[in-house]
């Protein structure tokens, strides 16, 4: 009869423990904090440290002597000449990858924002029945595998892709914009992260009091005025949050440029992958190259801290 007694004491201890604020805080916040420290902060800190160390060529062990050689290797030597319209510049593969990644991510973010905002606005004004249908149509692509969605655009683009075949059949194409390359990668990323933007924007638009907008319109504010003075300020957390959810993953994208670039779009994610496990494995250079993406993560962290509220976001 000892077992039930022990259960009872254990339960009593648990109950009295949970009644104390300190203990219950520790029990609830503790495990998550441990996970975040051990699996997020420590690896990123370790990566930063490795980027300033070097790797033994024979044993592949890390040599802990502070050096900036990894960074120097990325930006010095091996430059190629590139032309961007009339502009001709020289850059290393790394510099070009960084420039390309940040530009593509910016375009994808702007596209997501402009495409998602009207849809989110309509969703916020739909009645419950119509909303249920639309949210299902939005969530299904969102839940569908990222890889399947990237692959679906691989079928659409390319010399013999669906788009060019259809254009060819009606006698217009095939046209170059539908080949694999930067436009395809931008479309792929926009499609991939569109639902993140949409749901974040919707969550902040849903809390919006539309009678405010009607009131402003009645009092003579133009459409542009209403958008600038009311809708944008009131949905700013959603705009910032949504943009981060698109921009940062796009900067470090790998699958989309790999599948839709077909070797023509060397974004930073591909470069890191090659240094980490690919043909030119070197943990230190890979870590140093990763810092170009980590910078955007750190900036995102400050913006999330400042603008994104859990209760306002509602859930992504």
């Amino acid at each position, binding site marked *: 009869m000892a077992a039930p007694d022990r259960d009872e004491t254990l339960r009593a201890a648990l109950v009295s423990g*949970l*009644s104390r604020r300190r203990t*219950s*805080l520790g029990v*609830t*916040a*503790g495990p*998550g904090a441990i*996970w*975040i420290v051990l*699996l*997020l902060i420590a*690896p*990123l800190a370790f*990566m930063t440290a490795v980027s300033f160390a070097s790797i033994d060529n024979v044993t592949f062990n890390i040599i802990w002597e502070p050096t900036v050689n990894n960074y120097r290797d990325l930006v010095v030597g091996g430059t190629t000449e590139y032309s961007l319209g009339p502009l001709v510049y020289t850059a290393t593969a790394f510099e070009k990858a960084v420039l390309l990644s940040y530009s593509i991510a910016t375009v994808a973010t702007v596209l997501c924002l402009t*495409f998602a905002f009207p*849809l989110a606005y*309509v*969703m916020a004004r739909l009645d419950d029945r119509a909303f*249920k249908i*639309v949210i299902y*149509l*939005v*969530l*299904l692509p969102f*839940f*569908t*595998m990222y*890889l399947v969605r990237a*692959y*679906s*655009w691989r*079928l*659409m683009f390319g010399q*013999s892709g669906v788009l060019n075949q259809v254009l060819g059949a009606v006698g217009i194409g095939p046209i170059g914009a539908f080949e694999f390359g930067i436009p395809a990668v931008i479309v792929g990323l926009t*499609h991939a992260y569109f639902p993140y933007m949409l*749901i974040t924007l919707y*969550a902040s638009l*849903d*809390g919006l009091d539309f009678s405010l907008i009607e009131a402003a319109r009645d009092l003579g504010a133009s459409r542009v005025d209403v958008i600038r003075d009311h809708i944008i300020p009131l949905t700013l957390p959603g705009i910032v949050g949504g943009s*981060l*959810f698109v921009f*940062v*993953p796009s*900067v*470090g994208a790998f*699958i989309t440029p790999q599948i839709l670039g077909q070797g023509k779009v060397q974004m930073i994610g591909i470069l*890191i992958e090659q240094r980490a*496990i690919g043909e030119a494995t070197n943990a230190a250079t*890979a*870590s140093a190259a*990763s810092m170009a*993406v980590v910078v955007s*993560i750190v900036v995102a*962290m400050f913006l*999330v801290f400042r603008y994104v509220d*859990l*209760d306002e*976001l509602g*859930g992504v």
Partner: protein
Amino acid sequence: MATETGEPAEQTGKEYADQFRNHQRIEQLLGNGLYAFAALMLVFLWLPLLIIVFLSFAQSPNLLPFDGLTLSNYQGIAGEPGLRSSVVSSFSIATFSAIIATTLGVLASFALTRYQFPFREVYRTFGIIPMIVPGVILGVGLRFYFLTVGINPSFLATVLTHSLYGLPFVLLIVSARLYTFDESLEEAARDLGADPLTTFRDVTFPVIAPAIGAGFLFAWVRSFEDYIRALFVSGINTDPLTQWMFGKITKASAENLNVLNAVSTLVVLAIAVALAIAMNYGNVTGYVAGTRDDADEE
């Protein structure tokens, strides 16, 4: 206002009426334009997926020339080496990591919504960040880190990585639910003599259970669909479904694409059914897309 009634009351009344009609027409046009644009965006989301579904029944993976319909692509699935084991592998990784992510996420949501503590905002921020960190960075960072602390790329390493990746999704959904939860219900239970554990089991849990379910589903799907994180930490003995699929995409022969279209269609279908069920039972929309449905429950 005279303009709003549309009744010409004065000499200038006709002008007002014209203006109003004009205004109405513009308003209607803009309204229709907005809805048309919204519909276009849904087409954008859906078109490539529908093309996959269609091509999965086509003889050739090229749309044109169209060679006719067939079910042979689906019959081809059975003979695929490694497909079955990779599905099993992905299922187990997703289930284990979602269980961990859900447990940690639910506890952390309570901490964030119920207590004031130092660095609470920092905790919240770091709780969201794993979702934003690009897969390459998380994968590479954890790969080097795991190797140094003695965890080789393996099933375990993948589960740990995905459990961190899934945490924000649970955290966002469950804490959103807890914010709208009426705490006086808990107080009432406590006043009537229930201890914290009983209160949680009988009062709090039933209310937040659908949100926990939605969070679990989200974390599960995010793990199941992940390719890039697993690429760095899964090692050669663990081969998730995404790696099998990626291999088919890179070796894009007509045969490979046919099988891939069929597998992709099955994945889309499975997710469609799971989502429909979850939305019927668990009110997923409310927890995933904000607080709209909370109003209905009161």
